[in-house]
């Protein structure tokens, strides 16, 4: 346990003390939020749009975008440990693989917490508040951390499979594709193109967005929250298992 804590402490410190990891993951989502909410505010005039403020609608995107940066950071950190030989040395310790992975990903959770609190604060200051109230803020943070963990595990999996930071960077645009091909810009029932609506319906990112969005706009919506947590938790579990398996393969080769 103490080994895991040491790894977790190292992971938090190395993530939070790198401005290149923290600043863009806060700045870019906020910039996109600001541009989107002014650029697409007229979309709220569409019949059936759930709110009259596009800022409220778009706030959820910032959480997902921040989590995508987490995936990149997690992958880059793990790849750097592989390239420097640190992971090889860890393989000599009796640590369980899942525990080792969780230790490595603690920094991403810390970054996710900073992001979630920042985006909630921005939502409270510049928006119309969180419809679900203070309890909703806690649930938003919890869902946001689950999403960060899910994407962080995917980043770590890519790094462990490839062993290269460059490969992690190469996969980064695919994460953004997942965000753009979701209900990011419009609610699913207002997406006009059938094929896009189908892709967005199959895309788990849509449900992560809708989970956060429900708390911001409508209040407590059990179905949206259950789907949001199920998708984020499911992706996190699958990716953690895949990363753990990739770690075993890598350690066997060491």
């Amino acid at each position, binding site marked *: 346990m103490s080994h895991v804590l040491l790894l977790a402490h190292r992971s938090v410190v190395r993530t939070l003390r790198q401005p290149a990891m923290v600043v863009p993951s806060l700045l870019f989502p906020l910039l996109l939020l600001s541009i989107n909410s002014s*650029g697409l*505010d*007229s*979309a709220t*005039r569409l019949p059936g749009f759930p709110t009259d403020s596009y800022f409220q609608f778009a706030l959820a995107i910032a959480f997902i975008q921040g989590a995508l940066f987490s995936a990149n950071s997690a992958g880059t950190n793990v790849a750097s440990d592989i390239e420097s030989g640190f992971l090889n040395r860890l393989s000599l310790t009796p640590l369980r693989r899942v525990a080792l992975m969780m230790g490595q990903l603690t920094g991403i959770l810390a970054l996710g917490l900073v992001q979630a609190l920042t985006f909630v604060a921005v939502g409270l200051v510049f928006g119309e508040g969180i419809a679900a109230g203070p309890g909703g803020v806690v649930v938003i943070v919890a869902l946001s951390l689950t999403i960060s963990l899910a994407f962080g595990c995917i980043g770590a999996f890519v790094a462990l499979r490839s062993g290269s930071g460059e490969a992690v960077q190469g996969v980064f645009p695919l994460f953004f594709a997942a965000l753009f091909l979701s209900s990011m*810009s*419009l609610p699913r029932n207002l997406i006009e193109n059938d094929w*896009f609506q189908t892709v967005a319906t199959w895309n788990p990112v849509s449900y992560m967005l809708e989970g956060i969005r429900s708390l911001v706009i409508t209040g407590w919506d059990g179905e949206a929250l259950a789907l949001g947590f199920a998708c984020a938790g499911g992706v996190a579990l699958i990716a953690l298992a895949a990363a753990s398996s990739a770690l075993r393969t890598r350690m066997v080769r060491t």
Partner: protein
Amino acid sequence: MSAARAVAWRNLHNWLTNPALFIPSLLFPLFFFTAFAGGLSRVDSVPGFNYAPGYTTFVYGFVLLQAATFGGIFTGFSVARDFESGFARRLMLGATNRGGIVAGYWLSALGRAVGTIIVITMVALLAGLEVHGNGLDVVGLYTLALLMNAFAVLFGTGVAMRLRTMQAGPAIQVPAFLLIFLAPVWVPYDLLTGWVQTAAAVNPVTLMLEAGRGFLAGDPTKVLPAFAVVALLVALTLLWARGGLRSAERVA
């Protein structure tokens, strides 16, 4: 001339044979086109959105200029990479006319933009692009895009030749990104609100987008101001790139 040809050929060859360079430059505009034209098409039902050729064509007008601009920006990255690897220094020692080096980078950016635009246009036509303009409008549209490409590559080259490192990437990309996205990207200018409308009012890209979309709709709009502004930007960035070349010469 031979230096320009050699630099252009080398860069185009690198671009076409290196998937890490080729795929993102092609995928990003396609990706924006798909995401916006597919996901936001309902926006054309918003009261006040009056664009006869439809939302797919409206988005194509943006993606075309974006692809042309980023063709130039990505070439700016190539200039920075050439300096970081030491290749540019050897090139400067070998070239009789160093202005030809900048011309070569510009030609390669032009080639990249033309290649990307062909692919995007084919995809857009399959997706329902409607060109209501005549032949002259189409020539105007693509001339505008290629002038944007020249502006972007000259700006990127100027930055890359001054900083001479790949770390110049954000300094090249971020201003271009802001210029492109602080314009009427998703809806016409009149439907923008807040600070983005204020920014779009003074952003030269707004003029170019409106002119480009006017050409596509067969209703040329703000043509002279758009061409005047883009010509001015090309002239200014030409001076900027020449200054960058002088800066690089001093350390070569």
